[in-house]
């Protein structure tokens, strides 16, 4: 065992900090600070991606040959931490974190050559077409059908919870190509140009009153077979590959730690009796401490996963565990924030948290986003495989139940 932090990692951190200090514009930082979900305001997030791309840091986790940074696991962790600390707007993940790695693993040389550079430079804006109204946790039951017709598929059906479909020009999607076999065996993975005739996009307004999600309807939409990833009816394998990659790469603890620090800061501004503040309240402090301990434990759980990945091992269902812990702690932290803010958290001004809107909020600025975050994080235990599904995976794959 070895917890030693090599000295060169300190230098690296300095380098990252200096770059962020020089490159992040005030508007971008505002977008980062005001983001209430995992998604920042798209225009500013894409602008920031372009700056990172110029430095070669838009997708550090990609293999170097495709534009990755060639960093160690620790360097990637440091980079992620510093981005959060600097309040950089999170990059839109569908291209960089999902589609890209999937293409690298499963795409043809032509597909890689065409799409990967366009992902890095932001030319393509991707969305994900997985869920359907009747296929959420039970994704394999999806019904959107792609009928073979010469060199094309003709698609009919609908996708839901498609984040930012209205901004996207490309979608990667799972569609059914065979209804006669077991559900998983009849699914194909396709890339769909969102400008193809027959696509209609209906935004869905969320609890935070922001239309981040969409429902997408397909009415005889023609997609060239060249846009298929992997073989026909083998889409489930591609999706599983992507899922594995997604899970292994997700780290929650660094961001959670910083968010919890912010809760402590805002709680320290709330007076409880004219003399003491809320962080001096034993009960609240105890709840914060319990959460902090959980985050510390998660940090080392994630370190153990990285250590296993670094040694070429499969972290297995530990990634289901970090999904559960990461999302439930995230929810807990947003809950602590609204508890600390009391009635101030109830003030609802979505117009004041649009980056660049310049609207003066009612109440302290730090209180404007807390409720939207609390509402938004409710979704984290639902999406990406609900936490019920994740617990089922652990029971089955780890405990053998």
């Amino acid at each position, binding site marked *: 065992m070895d917890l030693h932090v090599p000295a060169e990692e300190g230098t690296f951190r300095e380098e990252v900090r200096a770059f962020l200090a020089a490159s992040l514009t005030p508007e971008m930082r505002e977008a980062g600070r005001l983001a209430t979900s995992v998604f920042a305001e798209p225009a500013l997030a894409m602008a920031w991606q372009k700056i990172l791309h110029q430095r070669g840091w838009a997708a550090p986790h990609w293999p170097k040959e495709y534009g990755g940074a060639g960093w160690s696991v620790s360097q990637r962790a440091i980079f992620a931490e510093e981005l959060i600390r600097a309040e950089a707007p999170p990059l839109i993940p569908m291209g960089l974190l999902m589609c890209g790695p999937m293409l690298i693993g499963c795409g043809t040389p032509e597909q890689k050559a065409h799409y990967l550079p366009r992902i890095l430079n932001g030319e393509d804006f991707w969305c994900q077409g997985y*869920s359907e109204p*009747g296929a*959420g*946790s*039970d994704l394999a*039951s999806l019904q959107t059908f792609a009928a073979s017709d010469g060199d094309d598929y003709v698609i009919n059906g609908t996708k*839901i*919870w498609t984040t930012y479909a209205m901004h996207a020009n490309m979608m990667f999607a799972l569609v059914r190509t065979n209804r006669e076999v077991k559900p998983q065996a009849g699914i194909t993975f396709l890339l769909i140009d969102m400008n193809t005739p027959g696509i209609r996009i209906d935004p*869905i*307004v*969320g*609890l935070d*009153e922001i239309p981040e*999600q969409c429902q997408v309807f397909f009415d005889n939409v023609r997609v060239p077979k060249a846009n298929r990833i992997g073989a026909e009816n083998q889409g489930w394998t591609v999706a599983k590959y992507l899922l594995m990659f997604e899970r292994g790469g997700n780290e929650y603890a660094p961001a959670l730690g910083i968010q919890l620090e912010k809760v402590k800061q805002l709680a320290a*501004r*709330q*007076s*409880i*009796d*004219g*003399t003491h503040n*809320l962080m001096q309240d034993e*009960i*609240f402090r105890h709840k914060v401490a319990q959460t902090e301990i959980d985050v510390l434990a998660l940090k080392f759980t994630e370190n153990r996963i990285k250590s296993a990945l670094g040694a070429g091992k499969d972290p297995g269902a530990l990634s289901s565990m970090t999904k559960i812990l990461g999302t439930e702690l995230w*929810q807990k932290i947003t*809950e602590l924030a*609204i*508890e600390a803010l*009391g*009635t*101030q*958290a*109830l*003030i*609802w*001004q979505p117009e004041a948290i649009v980056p660049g809107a310049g609207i003066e909020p*009612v*109440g*302290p600025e730090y209180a404007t986003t807390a*409720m939207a975050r*609390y*509402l938004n994080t*409710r*979704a984290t*235990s*639902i*999406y990406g495989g*609900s*936490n*019920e599904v994740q*617990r089922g995976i652990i029971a089955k794959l780890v405990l053998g139940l």
Partner: protein
Amino acid sequence: MDFSLNDEQKQLSDSVGKFVKGSYDFEKRRQIIKKHDSLDPAIWQQFAELGWLSLPFAEDDGGIGGTLIDTMVLLEECGKGLVVEPFIPTVVLGGGFIRRGTPAQKSRYLPALMAGTLQAAFAVQEYEQTFSLATTAATATATADGDCYVLNGHKSVVLNGDRADVCVVLARTAGNPGQEDGLTLFLVDTDTPGVQRTGHRLVDNTRAADIRFDNVRIAHENILGELHQGAALARTVINEAILALAAEATGILSVLLYSTVEYTKTRKQFGVAIGSFQVLQHRMTNMFIAHEQTRSLLLCATLKMHEGHSDAGKAVHALKAQLGRAGRLLGQEAIQLHGGMGMTDEMPIGHYFKRITAIDALFGNADQHTRAFAA
């Protein structure tokens, strides 16, 4: 002991329930929020005509002379329909203070309030403070000639404050922040010079205001209750407001529970209704238990307040603490079990979730009331 409603209470409950079902469906509510700024004048007028705005007031004052139990019955049904109209700010808080005022104060405000033509509010909370009377920093100083008081301060999240015609304001007339002694209640007409209001929405789609009082002159006759002794009266009325909120919340909790139960009976995944999954069944059972326990404490606190029991205050603390915990559990589980649909503005469930979340924050949250219970 008898926990069943008597005939009059049953009648009231039925009539409110019918009104909510018939005239206040979710689409109607959506329009009220969008078009009417969270108060539909026609609906409010109906409240007045049905006598609901007169319910808690004494017959001598022109009211109906209803009890706390009647208010509880009314608000539980309002909770089920998620009525956004400001019954609690105007009738329970504003009216609760005014009906304890002088005959002059009562006759000046109550008739209009009961007629539905006057709105009221209670300005107590200030910024960057957890809920506490003692921390009140707003001050009211007697003028040199002793003619009136001059009020200065900044109140936050004044429920219904943006449309209130009259505002009950808690301010310090003696002592220092941290003390409950030295606080006084004032009746302030919101068109008095120096009152600056910024109205805004709350997350539950009710309305509130940020109110600055800038050298607002208040005549002696507008002191409500006794000088320097406002905290005790404030606490009494706040306790009644907590009961009212809890009654509303109990209605909300029942919707959170039973809508979720119904949803899971119809929503299919893996070829079966998700309500058939044992894990979800046990979680809904825990929701059921939390709801019933809350209802038990609502009955406990209402009856003890109604009978003026010495431990009524303690029962209210227990109720508000339980409400916070149950609201958190039922709200969060309702969203989780509704899945993606629970996260949409379109489905009612999220709106119930928002209101139950707001109720925990009002007048001290679960932790604060648990602490007070133990004191």
